């Protein structure tokens, strides 16, 4: 469902030629808003290949300037803590010459055709740290075009040269005559001005907003309890449901005795699905009490006896056979044969749950002729499609109300929770909010995949790596989530961080073997491919430095002659961390370097290992070159956040299966880093005018090897399997 102003005939009337070199007209059209005002309809480049082929203009973002001067951006990305709702409006406000607080945001309704993410093959999704990367050019251009049209409208009205007018703080001024008019007063006239063909964007030194630490726009309601997340919606008459899903993935309900549950005060209904039971009640307290009173017998199905070690065995076996070649440079076989020293290792990373603080939830009202869904999702259009399919209703009869997200990290790129809620709601008269207990949330997540890596290198007499060979096996999320993105056994995510390394490696061969684990679903997880690959490559690079008896920073630096941005962050992090300065016993520093999400990052972790083997990260120093910085405070916040997220994984993150069941249940068995364990974090941002790189996830992949390399420096123990096992580090 799209509001009226988004489908004004003016927006769709013109047809622009499309082509590989994108003219400004090709991605933007102007028209009048019903009721007056200016509407800019944008087509973000390559959002929709079908539309391009049809040679038609398909807008996918909208900026409306009303006659009241209000500026409304219909926002194709969601806010989940990463600051998007502040940084995206900054791009428009910068060129439009308005204050940031004049730009109002509206959640985009589900419509893949309109709001597809150009960097995610047109899926309407917020993920892969790319909101700013996708919006950087088009939204600034849109702001500049709107400003130019408003200035033209004013100049025409006053019969003066547009060049003698100036846009400032939401109005156009003509200094020689002292005349001025607000954007609201000019919006209707501006709608009749032809879209300019050539509009110059500001040079970086002219930026007044971009690069400044703008205040977050979404935070005041989050400190006084008034922000509404998906879990907070209360449509009139809503009932609360909670559920038990088959503890073994793929199992079914065999029998259920609900007599005791039905007797619980406030319990209204017990719903039996093929593989789950839900208790519908007046409030969650009654629903949980009812759930506990159910006697359910499960038929566990084919994965009844599955344990993690069997999955690992299958992955390990897959690394003994050839995979798909992700990158090949030179001749590794020949180089390896001629190497003076050979180093070999295997690495493993575990399954991980997302554990978003807002547990999985979705509210649904199914009527005979329509369906409403209230949910915080990273994929609104997929949520709508899933609800339509599950109800059998046409797509236009399903309304999705998207909400603030209490943590995404990839979990809310999936629609399993929506489907489940609709299945339950189909059997409930009236709206029902399905809230998962934390135990269900942890035990029925879709997990960061387990990976097994077999890696080797050959060093010359000077200790330099002349050959690098890496073969790893694990799940491809892209192959399931975005099948066209998986080709010839490869996808860009699963291999990111394992290939196209910043280092000059004359002979390199990397293979990936896709192995989908049995009996456990997998999904994107903050920093995705790099969360696995950077741990392996940066740990192994450390091993090579050790073998070569060289300093880990110096060893890396020598391989970066052709990568100045990588070298700069490496040197900056090392310098700021006091690399090389003496430390007490059982304390060590470790470095990592990566180039992922189009961002260069180096981190130094300083860790202390107790006699009992407990690892404490005392301090982290991060140097980052993420190109042009839109909001430096958000960059710092995202890095601090990602580092805590990564340390949590390095120290504690481990989802294991026993008899087909996830063994972890709540924050006692699936621990999170807490404030008393959080390190001091110093972030240094390298000034750059390159296009922006991704920021939401890079810090997570970088911290993990920095920590394990620091543990090696402190104890001499090389950690090749996550999470860190204190037993291995116990001083004997």
């Amino acid at each position: 469902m799209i509001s009226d102003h988004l489908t004004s005939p003016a927006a769709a009337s013109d047809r622009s030629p499309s082509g590989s070199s994108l003219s400004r007209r090709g991605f933007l059209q102007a028209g009048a808003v019903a009721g007056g005002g200016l509407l800019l309809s944008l087509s973000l480049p390559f959002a929709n290949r079908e539309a391009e082929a049809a040679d038609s203009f398909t807008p996918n973002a909208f900026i409306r300037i009303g006659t009241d001067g209000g500026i409304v951006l219909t926002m194709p990305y969601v806010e989940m803590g990463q600051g998007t709702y502040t940084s995206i409006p900054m791009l428009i406000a910068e060129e439009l010459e308005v204050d940031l607080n004049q730009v109002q945001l509206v959640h985009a309704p589900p419509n893949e055709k309109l709001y597809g993410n150009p960097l995610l093959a047109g899926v309407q999704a917020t993920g892969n740290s790319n909101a700013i990367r996708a919006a950087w050019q088009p939204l600034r251009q849109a702001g500049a075009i709107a400003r130019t049209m408003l200035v033209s409208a004013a100049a025409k009205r006053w019969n003066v040269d547009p060049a003698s007018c100036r846009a400032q703080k939401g109005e156009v001024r003509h200094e020689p005559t002292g005349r001025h008019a607000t954007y609201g007063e000019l919006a209707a006239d501006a709608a009749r001005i032809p879209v300019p063909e050539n509009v110059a964007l500001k040079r970086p030194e002219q930026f007044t907003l971009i690069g400044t630490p703008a205040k977050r726009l979404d935070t005041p309601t989050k400190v006084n309890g008034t922000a509404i997340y998906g879990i907070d919606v209360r449509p009139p008459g809503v009932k609360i449901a909670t559920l038990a899903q088959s503890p073994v993935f793929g199992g079914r309900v065999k029998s259920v005795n609900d007599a005791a549950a039905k007797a619980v005060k406030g319990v209204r209904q017990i719903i039996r699905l093929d593989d789950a039971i839900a208790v519908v009640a007046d409030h969650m307290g009654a629903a949980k009490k009812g759930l506990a009173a159910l006697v359910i017998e499960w038929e566990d199905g084919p994965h009844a006896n599955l344990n993690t070690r069997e999955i690992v065995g299958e992955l390990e076996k897959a690394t003994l056979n050839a995979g798909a070649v992700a990158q090949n440079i030179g001749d590794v076989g020949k180089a390896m044969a001629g190497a003076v020293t050979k180093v070999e290792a295997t690495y493993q990373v575990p399954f991980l749950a997302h554990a978003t603080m807002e547990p999985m939830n979705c509210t649904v009202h199914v009527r005979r002729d329509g369906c409403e869904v209230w949910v915080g999702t990273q994929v609104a259009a997929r949520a709508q499609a899933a609800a339509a399919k599950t109800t059998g209703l046409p797509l236009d009869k399903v309304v999705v109300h998207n909400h603030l997200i209490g943590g995404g990290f990839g979990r809310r790129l999936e629609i399993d929770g929506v489907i489940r809620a609709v299945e339950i709601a189909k059997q409930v008269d009236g709206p029902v909010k399905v809230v998962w207990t934390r135990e269900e949330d942890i035990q029925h997540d879709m997990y960061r995949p387990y990976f097994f890596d077999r890696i080797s290198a050959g060093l010359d007499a000077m200790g330099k790596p002349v050959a690098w060979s890496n073969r790893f096996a694990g799940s491809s999320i892209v192959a399931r989530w975005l099948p066209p993105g998986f080709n010839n056994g490869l996808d860009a995510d699963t291999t990111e961080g394992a290939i196209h390394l910043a280092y000059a490696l004359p002979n390199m061969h990397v293979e990936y073997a896709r192995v989908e684990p049995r009996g456990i679903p997998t999904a994107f997880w903050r920093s995705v491919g790099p969360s696995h690959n950077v741990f392996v490559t940066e740990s192994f690079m450390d091993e090579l430095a050790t073998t070569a008896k060289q300093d880990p920073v110096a060893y890396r630096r020598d391989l970066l002659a052709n990568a100045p941005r990588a070298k700069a962050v490496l040197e900056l992090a090392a310098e700021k961390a006091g690399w090389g300065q003496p430390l007490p016993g059982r304390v060590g520093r470790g470095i990592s370097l990566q180039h992922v999400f189009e961002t260069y990052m180096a981190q130094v972790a300083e860790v202390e290992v107790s006699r009992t083997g407990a690892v404490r990260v005392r301090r982290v120093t991060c140097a980052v070159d993420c190109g042009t910085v839109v909001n430096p405070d958000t960059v710092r916040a995202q890095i601090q956040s990602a580092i805590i997220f990564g340390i949590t994984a390095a120290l504690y993150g481990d989802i294991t299966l026993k008899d087909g069941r996830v063994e972890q249940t709540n924050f006692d068995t699936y621990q999170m880093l807490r404030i008393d364990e959080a390190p001091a974090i110093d972030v240094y941002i390298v000034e750059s005018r390159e296009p922006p790189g991704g920021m939401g996830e890079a810090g997570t992949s970088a911290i993990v090897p920095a920590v394990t390399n620091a543990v090696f420096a402190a104890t001499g123990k090389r950690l090749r399997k996550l999470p860190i096992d204190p037993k291995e580090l116990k001083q004997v």
Partner: protein
Amino acid sequence: MTTTIKVNGVDRTLDVDGDTPLLWALRDVLGMTGTKFGCGMALCGACTVHVDGVAVRSCITPVDSIGKSEITTIEAIGATPAGAKIQKAWLDREVVQCGYCQSGQVMSAAALLASNPNPTDSDIDAAMSGNICRCGTYVRIREAIKQAARSAGQGG
């Protein structure tokens, strides 16, 4: 059987089992959704409220255990001097990311500041380590508490 509890200065009567956790009475019965559900086992602190000024986890606090005690929630904490200072410091320091845990963080911090105007790092650790933040805003939470304490010290 009904239970009457006093929430933010107002008596509220609930028709729920006496062992119903306060969290669900607040969220689902009274419609006060600022207090959040995170774990249901007092492991994460998202559901923190004040009972007679003391931070408690509402997810394990039965409504029939409250008696005449006064409950304060995130919706009203801004009316207390410590709560107002914490909220201001939270915004000044840009603590918040996804924000879901922040109701609980603010409530724990406000209780700390009300009882201890000059908390040390270890006081902060002790008072705040029961509150998980998955976005990892801990560095800024610590700074914000210290800022709020400084502003309290100035009588502001």
